[in-house]
């Protein structure tokens, strides 16, 4: 048991959450190991982003618990939660850069807010982080001048500014051209090893995710359907997981939205 605790950074137990009358999560249990890249996959609308917000303590679960680094996130006082969040980086789908600040100031933002470093120290740190994502030359641009992929890389530089123990990626590959996609895949992998991070990727891009993930959880309809290493999942016994991992048009999830019989539907006038 102690062995498990040491190797597990985040442990989610019997988590339940619903929005309005819609159950998003129904009794989910999963563990995220320290130092690895864990992917959480599933079709759109299964609340993968919601899961990240629950881990970050931005949402309150209805039942169950989320434990990060042996602290129960939803029982922390606001000040404790804030100091835990300083150790968490999060990369939002849109990048969530502050639109009125330059690239440099965006990366400097968490440093200015949370440290009392000198201006030259901040400059050095910011340039180091920007260099790590390959955008040291873009420091004076404004967020509106960046492409989607660059914005995500700046956001990544900002997320690692405070040297966190973990980073959560919300759909990092969505809407990227092949080159920026490749850059991001490479960055996530290399940062994870070089900084000794724990990475959590929420995504439905099977190929890219399977390439770098050590462990994959597949979530659908509020439940964990399957989990394991990428190769194992590709050959999963579940037809549903097979369809998802291989992206087949038809399978347990039908191509057609439920509708009356085609022929009789056409003939009714």
């Amino acid at each position: 048991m102690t062995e498990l605790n040491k190797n597990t950074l985040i442990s989610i137990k019997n988590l339940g959450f619903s929005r309005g009358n819609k159950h998003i999560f129904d009794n989910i249990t999963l563990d995220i190991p320290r130092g690895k890249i864990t992917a959480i996959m599933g079709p759109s609308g299964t609340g993968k982003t919601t899961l990240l917000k629950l881990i970050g303590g931005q949402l309150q679960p209805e039942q169950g618990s989320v434990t990060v680094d042996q602290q129960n996130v939803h029982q922390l006082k606001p000040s404790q939660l804030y100091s835990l969040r300083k150790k968490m980086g999060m990369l939002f789908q849109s990048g969530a850069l502050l639109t009125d600040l330059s690239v440099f100031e965006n990366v400097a933002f968490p440093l200015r807010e949370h440290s009392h470093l000198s201006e030259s120290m901040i400059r050095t740190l910011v340039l180091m982080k920007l260099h790590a994502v390959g955008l040291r030359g873009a420091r004076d641009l404004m967020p509106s001048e960046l492409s989607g992929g660059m914005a995500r890389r700046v956001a990544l530089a900002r997320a690692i500014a405070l040297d966190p123990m973990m980073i959560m990626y919300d759909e990092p590959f969505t809407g990227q051209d092949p080159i920026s996609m490749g850059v991001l895949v490479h960055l996530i992998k290399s940062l994870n090893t070089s900084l000794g991070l724990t990475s959590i990727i929420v995504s439905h891009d099977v190929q890219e995710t399977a390439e770098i993930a050590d462990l994959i959880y597949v979530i659908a309809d509020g439940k964990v359907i399957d989990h394991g290493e990428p190769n194992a999942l590709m050959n999963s016994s579940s037809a549903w997981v097979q369809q998802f991992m291989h992206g087949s048009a038809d399978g347990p999830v039908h191509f057609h939205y439920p509708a009356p019989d085609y022929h009789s539907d056409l003939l009714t006038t």
Partner: protein
Amino acid sequence: MLHYFETLGRSTRENFAKLGRATFFLLLTLQGIPDILPRLSLLIKQLYSVGVLSILIISISGLFVGMVLGLQGYYVLSDFGADETLGLMVAASLVRELGPVVSALLFAGRAGSALTAEIGLMKATEQLSGMEMMAVDPVRRIITPRFLAGLMSLPLLAAMFSAIGIMGGHIVGVGMLGVDDGAYWSQMQASIDFYDDILNGVIKSVAFGFVVSWIALFEGYDTLPTSEGVSRATTRTVVNSAFSVLALDFILTALMFGDI
């Protein structure tokens, strides 16, 4: 019929819930004030976008409102041979009512809607959420400076509005219609009381600044994070601000000048 009551009940409950959220939001905003004092640059930036950028519309509107008051007032007053009290009429209407109220309405349209759209977009693009995840409280960092800027700007803008309006009345009344210059000012000075009229006008505009900033920031913060949600919230800001300013004006006027 039952359906109607059901809808009514639900919307009532939603409105109360919104009022509750708005109150909680206000408390959080006020709590952040001590954090602003060591970081005045945040406040100055907002004073610029909320206050400085509103000067033009306030000045021009004030000038025209004053000129219209001069013109209309002259025609009414000259019928009674009382045209030398024109200055008093212009100044009293501006200082007591039109200055605070009209500048609050313009402020809601110019600065309030901009605040709602800005905060709403920050929410829609996950900037507020992102700040929370960087362990920065977005209310303290984003909302409180804007709230204080609104609170400080409106009284200054309303004072400019009244001052320029009185000049506008002077241009029309004295310059064009031939009211005596001395009478214009002296009638004003004899009857406008510093405490009863001017200070009460300032108190009104502080109250309006409070309410308009509160509504604008809350609507932005509480918006649905979609482009449709932001555009609706912006409309609601202008409508609700205008309504609240006028209702509050009645209450404050009754308290200050009336014996209700």
